């Protein structure tokens, strides 16, 4: 895998160079870098690397950082989810203040498919299409035995009934067609501790969950993390003395350097190169620093996305692409309107800056 040096971001001991993409028309003489869908598609590789029920790692190769970053930003801030937004407190005698408890409730990830719900716009009233209602009614009390019979140091479970307010205590009150459409609604994880209670303390609340976007509040963000890093590229330019192979190996992440004891060679493992953190430890060693070149591949994005919402992790990129297309369509419609207004040879009426 010899990478075209134009694709590399060089990494030195104390500096990073060749950071910006140069593939624009007019940058290289006699080279055409204008937009061309066919050559873009030829260059483009999308490859899923690993997938679990909660997270995905995939490679997006052959795009500019602005495109990769657009998808990352949309996954974090613009893919909608459902979260608790309004909390009506009828009773709360726990030590957790109403505001803190309301905030905690908002952060509970809910298992509701956002496509099944509408957004509640300003001035609208809540309906079964845009609002989910939950109730909490919990009171802590002593167990009859008060835990005395069990042990000298009884646990909370042995002493009290309902000594914790957990996310599973949210009771869904389906309205209208919700039961048919959604079947179930509730927290993704039922064991989130929201408050601790003692005998005599009680909570009674009504909660309204709504559809929203991460840009309004992080509770609506469908991801725990959505990040990318550039694929590392490590090249050994001069042979590494075999006596120091183990020391050389320790300068990189596990698996990146292959030491063959029979052939007495030191090599980089291509498949494990992606795991390297590019710590530059190797450049601190006077003997190694001129024997190796560190870089990253500018157009090779290793995305790592963790879903913390009703979306499956593999659904998040298609959702983000869909939203990007909606944004493009909205802008295009507005631009076409301007173009229509331009007709007739008259000058465009310009608005004052506000």
């Amino acid at each position: 895998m010899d990478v075209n040096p134009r694709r590399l971001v060089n990494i030195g001991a104390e500096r990073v160079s060749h950071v910006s993409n140069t593939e624009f028309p007019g940058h290289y003489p006699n080279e055409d870098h204008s937009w061309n869908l066919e050559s873009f598609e030829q260059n483009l590789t999308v490859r899923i690397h690993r997938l679990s029920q909660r997270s995905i790692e995939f490679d997006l190769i052959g795009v500019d950082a602005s495109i990769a970053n657009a998808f990352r930003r949309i996954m974090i801030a613009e893919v909608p989810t459902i979260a608790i937004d309004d909390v009506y407190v009828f009773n709360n005698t726990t030590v957790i203040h109403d505001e803190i408890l309301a905030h905690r409730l908002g952060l509970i990830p809910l298992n509701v498919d956002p496509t099944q719900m509408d957004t509640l716009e300003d001035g609208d009233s809540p309906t079964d299409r845009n609002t989910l209602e939950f109730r909490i009614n919990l009171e802590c009390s002593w167990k009859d035995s008060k835990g005395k019979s069990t042990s000298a140091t009884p646990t909370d479970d042995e002493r009290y009934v309902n000594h914790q307010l957990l996310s599973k205590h949210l009771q869904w009150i389906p309205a209208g067609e919700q039961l048919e459409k959604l079947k179930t609604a509730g927290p993704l994880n039922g064991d989130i501790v929201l408050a601790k209670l003692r005998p005599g303390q009680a909570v009674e609340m009504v909660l309204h969950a709504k559809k929203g976007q991460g840009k309004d509040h992080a509770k609506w963000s469908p991801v725990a993390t959505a990040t990318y890093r550039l694929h590392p590229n490590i090249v050994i330019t001069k042979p590494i003395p075999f006596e120091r192979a183990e020391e050389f190996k320790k300068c990189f992440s596990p698996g990146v350097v292959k030491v063959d004891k029979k052939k007495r060679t030191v090599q980089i493992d291509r498949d494990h190169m992606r795991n390297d953190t590019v710590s530059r430890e190797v450049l601190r060693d006077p003997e190694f620093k001129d024997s190796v070149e560190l870089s990253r591949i500018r157009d090779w994005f290793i995305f790592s996305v963790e879903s913390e919402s009703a979306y499956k992790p593999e659904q998040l990129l298609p959702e983000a692409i869909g939203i990007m297309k909606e944004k493009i369509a909205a802008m295009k419609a507005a631009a076409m309107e301007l173009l229509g207004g331009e007709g007739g040879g008259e000058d465009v009426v310009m608005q004052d800056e506000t």
Partner: protein
Amino acid sequence: MATSEVPPKVRIMKGAAPDLSAATYQVYDESHTMGNALRWMLMKNPKVEFCGYSVPHPSEPNIQIRIQMYDNLSSLQALIKALDDLNHLCDSINTKYTESLQNDGYQRWDEKS
């Protein structure tokens, strides 16, 4: 703000050339997400002399895109072309991603929460 009216999605700012060969467009309710992607796509157009974008204020939901064209061409046409091209780009990434999801033998693993 005095009025609660929604501003137009795209407007041409004061000081644009009458033939729109150089203009600054203000886009409402957009951010770096669209700004940088559009800037890149416009710069891929050989007829664009200059393109840059800015977010004038972090708490206002606007971006401004400046486009200057060669040969007195219309920057509005270039903007529309860039939007179309971006749309195609989104489609091809989506296609390749779906293909990989269906056909590739990637590692599946069980992650405990």
